């Protein structure tokens, strides 16, 4: 059996979808961020897999992943800062409670 590219892409996609599911269903904002990490991770896998399978001669996908990890770290950092800030203000990290502004 050949482990062709699709065998990597599909788990990555499932990972992404799990992230989506988690992001939409989780009430805790930190849990939402965790789900988001899954999505970002899925993207990274995609880049790496494409690079490895289709374009082994260059390193674009790999570098993108490298930078994406850094970006993910930055995103997480700032998101958590904001969430903690909110926690300080309302003593809560439930996303459902942050619906004051609507319509």
């Amino acid at each position, binding site marked *: 059996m050949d482990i062709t590219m699709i065998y990597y892409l599909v788990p990555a996609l499932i990972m992404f979808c799990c992230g989506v599911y988690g992001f939409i269903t989780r009430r805790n*904002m930190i849990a939402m*961020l965790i789900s988001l990490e899954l*999505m970002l991770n899925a993207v990274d896998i995609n880049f790496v897999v494409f690079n490895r399978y289709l374009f082994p001669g260059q390193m674009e996908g790999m*570098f*993108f992943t490298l930078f994406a990890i850094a*970006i993910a770290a930055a995103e997480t950092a700032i998101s958590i800062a*904001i969430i903690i800030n*909110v926690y300080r203000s309302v003593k809560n990290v439930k996303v459902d409670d942050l619906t004051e502004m609507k319509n």
Partner: protein
Amino acid sequence: MDYTQFLAMKQEIWLLIAFIFVFLLDTFMPKKDQDKVGVICCLLFGLLTLRGFCPTVLGDQLAFGGMYETSTVIVNIKNILNIGVLIVMIQGLRWSAQDMVKIRRGEFYELLLATLFGMYLMISARHFLLFVIGLETASLPLAAMVAFDKHRYESHEAAVKYVLTAVFSSAVFMMGLSYVYGLTGSLYFSNIATALTAQGSSWLLIVALAFVIAGIGFKLSLVPFHLWTADVYQGAPTPVTSYLSVISKGAAAFAFLVILWQVFGSVYSQAWEWMMYALIILTITVGNLFAIRQRNMKRFLAFSSISQAGYIMLGIEAMNPMGLSALMFYILVYIFSNLAAFGVIGAIENATGKVYMQDYNGLYKTNPRLAFTMMLAMFSLAGIPPFAGFFSKFFIFTGAINQGSIAIYVLVLIALINTIISLYYYLLVVKAMFISDEESTVAKFNSSMSERVAMWICVAGILCLGIVSCVYNHLLAIAA
């Protein structure tokens, strides 16, 4: 390794220098002189803006192996953004001097400059990695800015909504990018375009493209990627809202144009033409429909800016130099008009804390100049001659129709009919200020020097940009 290539990035580098200078100034300045930081920053940035018009920065160049591009058009769009940022900065002076904010005002300017740097990168990037970094630089620190008013609950809520939507959309965007990479094997715009010309359109490409469009559509607040906009605009401090609504949007619009034209230009009719039709119609209509009901001025302008984004997209849909020039001109005019409106809102908010439309009743009787400025802004946004908004709207429609298909006529017709709805709600504001008989709840007050300067600049822009034709002629000349 040719480090002289950095010299192509004159604007970015000067901006970074300014950024670092402000950073150091903020850190090491004596406490008692802290209130000068804002003014110094404005002056510095004013110089920077002026510098942008020097001929030395002009000239087309590709650097870093085609990763970065600068050209006359790009320099001009950056200049346009600079003007907007300058006005935002001046407007923000009074706000940042408030007791609750002033301790952090240095950071406000730093973040402003940092995000502007991100936008520069978005505009100049010819490689998706750089683009993503620019995009993130332009949006992540903004979350911190949205959360700036710590004493206001709305500010927190807005920040959360902004940051969560932003990271989600960047994930979706990168997912799309990964598929594009898989299809084409490169992240360089030129290489992708070449590959796409060869292979044409496919399911994977279209899905990837939809993700990419969604990612940038988030920044532009195109419907249905717009839902964060209103809440964030309402919750954010007013200078940040104005920054989000004009600068961030303007930069994203231009970046969007570059991506769609340069990268996906070859699959225009096979992939994104119809997507954009749908998005434009949705954006304009839904934005307008939501705007009708709004009574909070900032929220109101949020929806108005959503529908304006739809008009901006018409320039992209045109796929020709006229569309490009019209888009640039539209952004420029939009900056002046919207910032004039936000200037007035900010002035009133700073003086009285009132942001609802009913508070504007009878404003003309107590504060005629503010009311007049607001009226000009509204007329310009609605596209009433002889104000600049009319010209920008006319040119963007002309540019769009230049594309020539029947469908574009229909699209423009829908957009035009929507201008009636938008006129309605813009007139509501005018009505409140001029016509309403009720006693004004806003007493007469003097706006600060900085606010006045910003408003004068905006009014001058609204009045002159259209009639003084050289601006548009210049833009059209460089676009062609």
